[in-house]
């Protein structure tokens, strides 16, 4: 009560010391993600309310962008996944999602599930094709199990 009166008397105090810029919603170390495929481990982790945490982002910036490979800690295991939708502000014509979505894959790029039940951005086609090399992992298998593109 006393404090509020004080605040009212002294409105300069209201311009607070800490900054209030909008958050960037970046995918970085220990970000919680949402598994959107129907793999066994992913479904169970989401149902239990223990979504996976990022423990590594495989790029130079260490901030995950669309189509980047990440390692996640899920139900006490280490799994790899591909970011298929981000909360962060995107470039023009690239969709921005309400959650950070991930599809689990194994080391060869084969997805663990058989179906993705949310829309996938079309730009992922080009990005994943560029990331696939003839001898390395083939990430384009992920596109085959998508149900809808936006």
């Amino acid at each position: 009560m006393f404090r509020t009166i004080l605040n009212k008397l002294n409105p300069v105090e209201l311009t607070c010391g800490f900054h209030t810029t909008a958050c960037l919603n970046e995918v970085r170390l220990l970000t919680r993600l949402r598994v959107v495929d129907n793999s066994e481990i992913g479904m169970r982790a989401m149902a239990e309310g223990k979504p996976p945490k990022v423990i590594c982002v495989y790029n130079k910036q260490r901030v995950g962008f669309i189509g980047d490979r990440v390692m996640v800690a899920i139900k006490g295991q280490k799994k790899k996944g591909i970011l298929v939708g981000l909360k962060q502000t995107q470039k023009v014509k690239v969709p921005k999602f309400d959650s950070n979505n991930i599809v689990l894959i194994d080391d060869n790029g084969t997805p663990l599930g058989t179906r993705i039940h949310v829309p996938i951005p079309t730009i992922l086609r080009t990005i994943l094709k560029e990331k696939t090399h003839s001898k390395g992992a083939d990430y384009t298998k992920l596109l085959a199990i998508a149900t809808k593109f936006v």
Partner: protein
Amino acid sequence: MAVTLRKSTELFTVAKWLTRRDCRTLSSLPEKAKLASLEVTEKAETSRRRPKKVNPLLENRHAYPEFLPDPNPKWRNSLREKLERADMLKRRNQIDIPEFYVGSILAVTIADPHSQGKTNRFVGICIERKGCGLRAEFTLRNVVDHQGVEVRYDLYDPTIHKIQVLRVEKRLDDKLFYLRDALPEYSTFSFDMDPEILPEGTPVPINPVKVELKPKPWLERWERQELQGISNIEQYLTKKDKVRRELRKTPWEKYDLMKQYRKTIPIEEQTDIWSEVNSQLQQLQLARKKSTRKRTFSAPKTQLG
């Protein structure tokens, strides 16, 4: 003697009159008079309008907000603005960019090198319009398969094939970012929605729907933004939130003339801009009306055949 005096005075007055006239032709006075006459004629045409001094040219600022430049004097450049306006009109001659507002439902088809059919269509509610000139952009939001998706488009993007307005509407607020925290049914629209055509001459309807928010945590402090379109915000607020809202209120800002002035383009500049582009915009509108009439006329023919 007296006669010569009289003559000289007459000459003097004549010279005075002439100089005055010259001055007038040099200044912008006659143009203004012309404008006034234009207004009068247009008023006579509409005849429903009240005799109150409302310039019909200025009404364009709601339908085509991107034609007005950014009021910040740092970024003003009259030549660039003029060139941009010409480019915008050129683009509008190429594709039909309809009149829409925040809260309208749009379908945008773009050329997409990433998709299989090389085109991509997205339907959604417009939650934001911003930017001036060729940088004007709008954001569409939809919920697809229980997943909220937002796409930002440039209005004058050359890859846009078609912008279709499925429903022209306004909402109670200028920006609808609160739909991100609202229940998903308020931003769900099916992709095969049919366009709803309003009868000609009706004003743009305002949809008075009030959305229900999901419980906290929210993306922003909606309670501090004086939003009209939220119905159940009070039930989620704590006592502290309410106190803070009261303390943060700025009721004096609506009387701050200087702030208003810095946010807007003055009437004189606006009339210049609108008189420059109005005739072309009117022509485009007429062409659109003609094409819609053709479509409505040809529809029964196809049914018969």
